């Protein structure tokens, strides 16, 4: 029997479809292996061979039994991602405390002059309202006793700032109820003698401070002019959503929200015009420029900026693969997304973090072709089997996708991978147009990592792919949708109280992030929406004859990001308003959204055989591949 293998080398995965001629061709095995090395280099060969071995094993043959190997003409595209933060918050003097400790004390708003609890009581005039500062050296019981003593001597104590985690202990031992903020590590940095305000919101959900987070509230408390009110805005905005906070009026200092020079991009359109745009103008502006200058000839980034570095890196990487010079390699698309990233506030008193504005960028490098022939040659050498470079990726993907039941020409595919979002459209005359856009699975992972303040990309990948839950008790977890599952065995004490990834098979991996399940879910979904829904519409618009997304009737989603548990539904939802039939592919009725290209390679080669076990419209393979396909057997 004749065995033929179709091989799709992608940026992250290498897939194989294996067919044999048993009085007519039939598919006998499918496999997938991690792509080794950069796509388009001979380093891919080990991964190819591994994938072939897996497929051969499933088909109960040896790799040597494969008579012919079909290789895809891989899309000459590399994607990369980077994040550019464009603001930072600097506290030039200790103006605010906004770390939001978990157990503040008391409730309400208090204003007064800052006084150390060790100060001489006689020195405090009775008219002054005071905010008391309690360093770690002072035991909480003593602090409470002192506060009571001062109160007996008619000193108006309005609030307290405490170094240790003692706010509740102190509040329970004093006679009045004053707002107390604790766990203030750098207590020595708080300027004694300055006016301050302390606010603690009432306990309960939705309860956040509302005076210190309102610039006019601060103006009222500190009697600010309108110029001073304008300056205090970064403080009030940093405190929005806090359950407690302290603001101190310092003689010179304030909180500065600086714009970091984030660099600029120069976008050059194919029609000759070009535009320079600063990244801090935000993603919407950048994408508008991309849209107006489309199609893009090249994009350059300012030297020394993060984005400049990323674009260089992407060019270099492509140069490694093709041997071309930097100058011959073009950046054909970028995707920009506005986001917020938690950054440590410089000069902060209690390790505060604030959410800084940032722009996430994905870039796509494209060149004319990849040197697949050297890969083909190497495989031929190693396996002593004939290797054909069978067809370009987009065409093969279309052909393979057509094996999804319910599909027919004309239709479009969305191939959602890691480095790029690709789309192709085949019209009634079997003509195929295709496009590659920057921004796909890797960008989603980066956005999740940035917005949650994670360095660990693997963890971010996990947060992308799996839903989370909170370990509430030793025997139960609460899911994202609020339902509770009871466990058969107790969790261990490191897992208790943690947010965990639910990887299936009952495995729960603690994520070690101090965020709520709801926040993680929102971040994850938002990242997927910003990247894939946007690019789905962009791609479908670009490949439609009328440059309109709503032109399409049928869209099939393939690629491994189409396996995601949320992305296909988000896209279907977004396309529904255009009346588009959109769903995850089901290649050969069995493999879901995977293996489209490898399947298409086999179909296009076999084109002139009489019997086939998947249904493809007559005459199709001939139009997209190399041979005639007649008399398909309908499955």
């Amino acid at each position, binding site marked *: 029997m004749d065995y033929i293998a179709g091989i799709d080398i992608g940026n992250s995965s290498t897939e194989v479809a294996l067919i044999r001629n048993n009085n007519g061709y039939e598919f006998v095995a499918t496999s997938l292996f991690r792509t080794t090395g950069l796509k388009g280099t001979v380093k891919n060969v080990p991964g190819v061979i591994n994938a072939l071995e897996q497929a051969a094993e499933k088909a109960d043959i040896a790799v040597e039994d494969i008579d012919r190997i079909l290789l895809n003409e891989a899309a000459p595209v590399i994607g990369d991602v980077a994040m550019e933060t464009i603001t930072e918050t600097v506290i030039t003097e200790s103006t605010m405390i906004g770390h939001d400790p*978990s*157990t503040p004390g008391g409730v309400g708003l208090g204003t007064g002059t800052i006084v150390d609890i060790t100060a001489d009581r006689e020195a405090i005039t009775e008219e002054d309202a005071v905010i008391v500062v309690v360093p770690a050296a002072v035991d*909480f019981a003593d602090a409470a006793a002192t506060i009571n003593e001062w109160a007996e001597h008619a000193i108006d104590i309005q609030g307290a700032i405490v170094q240790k*985690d*003692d*706010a*509740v*202990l102190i509040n*329970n031992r004093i006679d009045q109820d004053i707002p107390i903020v604790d766990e203030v590590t750098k207590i020595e940095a708080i300027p004694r003698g300055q006016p301050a305000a302390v606010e603690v919101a009432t306990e309960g959900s939705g309860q956040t401070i509302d005076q210190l987070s309102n610039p006019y509230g601060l103006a009222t408390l500190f009697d600010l002019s309108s110029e001073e009110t304008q300056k205090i805005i970064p403080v009030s905005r940093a405190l929005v959503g806090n359950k407690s906070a302290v603001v101190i009026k310092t003689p010179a200092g304030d909180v500065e929200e600086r714009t970091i020079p984030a660099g600029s991009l120069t976008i050059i359109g194919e029609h000759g015009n070009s535009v320079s745009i600063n990244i801090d103008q935000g993603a919407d502006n950048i994408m508008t420029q991309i849209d107006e200058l489309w199609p893009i000839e090249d994009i350059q980034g300012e030297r020394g900026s993060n984005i400049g570095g990323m674009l260089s890196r992407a060019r270099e990487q492509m140069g490694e693969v093709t041997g071309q010079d930097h100058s011959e390699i073009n950046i054909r698309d970028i995707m920009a997304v506005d986001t917020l990233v938690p950054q440590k506030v410089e000069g902060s008193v209690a390790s505060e973090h604030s959410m800084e504005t940032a722009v996430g960028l994905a870039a796509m490098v494209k060149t004319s072709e990849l040197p697949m022939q050297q890969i083909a040659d190497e495989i031929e050498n190693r396996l002593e089997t004939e290797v054909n470079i069978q067809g370009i990726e987009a065409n093969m993907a279309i052909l393979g996708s057509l094996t999804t039941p319910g599909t027919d020409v004309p239709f479009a595919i969305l191939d959602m991978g890691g480095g790029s979002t690709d789309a192709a459209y085949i019209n009634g005359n079997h003509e195929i147009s295709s496009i590659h856009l920057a921004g796909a699975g890797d960008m989603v992972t980066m956005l999740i990592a940035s917005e949650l303040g994670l360095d660990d990309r693997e963890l971010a990948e996990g947060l992308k792919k799996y839903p989370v839950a*909170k*370990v*509430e*008790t*030793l*025997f139960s977890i609460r899911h994202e949708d609020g339902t509770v599952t009871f466990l058969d065995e*107790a969790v261990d*004490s490191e897992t*208790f*109280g*943690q947010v965990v990834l639910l990887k299936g098979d009952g495995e729960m991996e603690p994520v070690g992030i*101090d965020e709520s399940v709801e926040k993680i879910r929102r971040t994850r979904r938002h990242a997927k929406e910003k990247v894939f829904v946007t690019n789905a519409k962009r791609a479908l618009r670009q490949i439609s004859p009328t440059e309109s997304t709503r032109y399409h009737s049928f869209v099939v989603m393939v690629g491994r990001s189409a396996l995601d548990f949320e992305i296909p539904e988000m896209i279907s939802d977004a396309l529904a308003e255009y009346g588009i039939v959109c769903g995850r592919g089901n290649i050969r009725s069995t493999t879901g959204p995977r293996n489209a290209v490898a399947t298409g390679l086999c179909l296009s080669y076999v084109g002139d055989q009489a019997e086939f076990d998947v249904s493809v419209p007559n005459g199709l393979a001939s139009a997209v591949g190399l041979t005639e396909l007649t008399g398909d057997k309908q499955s």
Partner: protein
Amino acid sequence: MTDQQAKPVASDGVPQIVIRYVENEHSLVEYIEYGIEEEGVPWRKQPLEDDADQPKNSATELAYQAASDSGLKIGIGVSRDKTLTLHHARLPIDKPVLSVIDPTNSQARTTGTNAARLAKRMPLRVID
């Protein structure tokens, strides 16, 4: 040492953490209580006479008894030899949540904090 009669249910209904300890160790207990108080969770104490004739209960056993009495199923045991154990009534008796031998006052306080965090479903603090 005689065991106090375990009360199966708090009569006022509000569930509490239970600390069960040998009388002469009450200084450590004070710091445990501070940890719980700061976190805002209710608790009660069960002091035991330090009767040298009775067999010694380990901190784990004391903690488990305390947890079984507790409406929150959370108990802390302090044994005569200054071992502190945090337990939960649904764990196997020999597998408590955590134990500290001869703790400092700060470590005792963190144990109290962790008992409360167990009740509040928050991650536990590392005892350093």
